[in-house]
């Protein structure tokens, strides 16, 4: 029992152990809910939900659905299974940090980030925000993100997942080369 406790309270697990946990979670999602894990879709559903309230005509399209149309929307603008999953992810992340007593409000404390981009928190926020927009937009085009397409699609051996992973690494490496320059 103490060994289990000691294991859980470690700050970092072996990626293989955590990977097995995520694999089991992904498996249970299919077994219990007939659903695939995904993160990006939840943001799109929430964006659609808010957008339909704020600017109904702008958000009335094939992506979020047209009122009264027979065609199903690509992303349902409602509280979907994925949105609830996302709430769980936030709670799980908090519990994970609590279990190792490393939970703390941080604004910009990644040493490597500070070395490359400087210590100002606003830079982290601006670049983080811009990067996240690029991520979400790309996930919309590809049909999923790292979790929804690469892992969930990959476990069904979908070709789409492996095309996506390939593309992700090509541009990710190029971006890192540009950002890090001679420090790569």
């Amino acid at each position: 029992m103490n060994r289990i406790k000691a294991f859980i309270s470690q700050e970092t697990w072996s990626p293989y152990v955590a990977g097995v946990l995520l694999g089991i979670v992904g498996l249970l999602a299919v077994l219990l809910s007939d659903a695939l894990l995904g993160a990006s879709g939840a943001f799109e559903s929430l964006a659609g939900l808010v957008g339909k309230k704020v600017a109904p005509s702008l958000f009335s399209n094939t992506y979020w659905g047209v009122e009264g149309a027979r065609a199903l929307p690509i992303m349902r603008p409602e509280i979907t299974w994925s949105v609830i999953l996302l709430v769980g992810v936030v709670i799980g992340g908090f519990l994970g940090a609590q279990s190792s007593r490393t939970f703390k409000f941080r604004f910009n404390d990644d040493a490597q980030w500070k070395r490359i981009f400087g210590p100002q928190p606003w830079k982290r926020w601006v670049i983080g925000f811009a990067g996240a927009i690029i991520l979400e937009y790309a996930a919309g085009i590809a049909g999923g993100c790292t979790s929804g397409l690469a892992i969930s699609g990959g476990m069904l051996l979908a070709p789409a997942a492996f095309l996506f992973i390939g593309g992700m690494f090509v541009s990710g490496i190029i971006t890192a080369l540009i950002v890090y320059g001679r420090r790569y």
Partner: protein
Amino acid sequence: MTNYIIALFLGVGFGFALNKVGLTKYHKVANQFRFTDMTVLKFMMTALVVAAAGLYVFRGLGWITFPAVPATYIAGNLIGGLIFGVGMSLSGY
């Protein structure tokens, strides 16, 4: 309703795993693209293999039918991936 409770619990497991592997930190994700830290690939591929093996066993036992496989449209998946990598490498998310 039950489905939502399941989603919540699975989300907790998902978030817990992400936290424990350190993918909530910028340098873990960024360093994958510099190949100085292979955590992202080790984590992703382990999850993929465990889930894939389990799925095929469960299907063999007749417990599940496969959910809709993400659609393959080569240009979309590839271009999406190419844009995605820029954001992932830049922001570390």
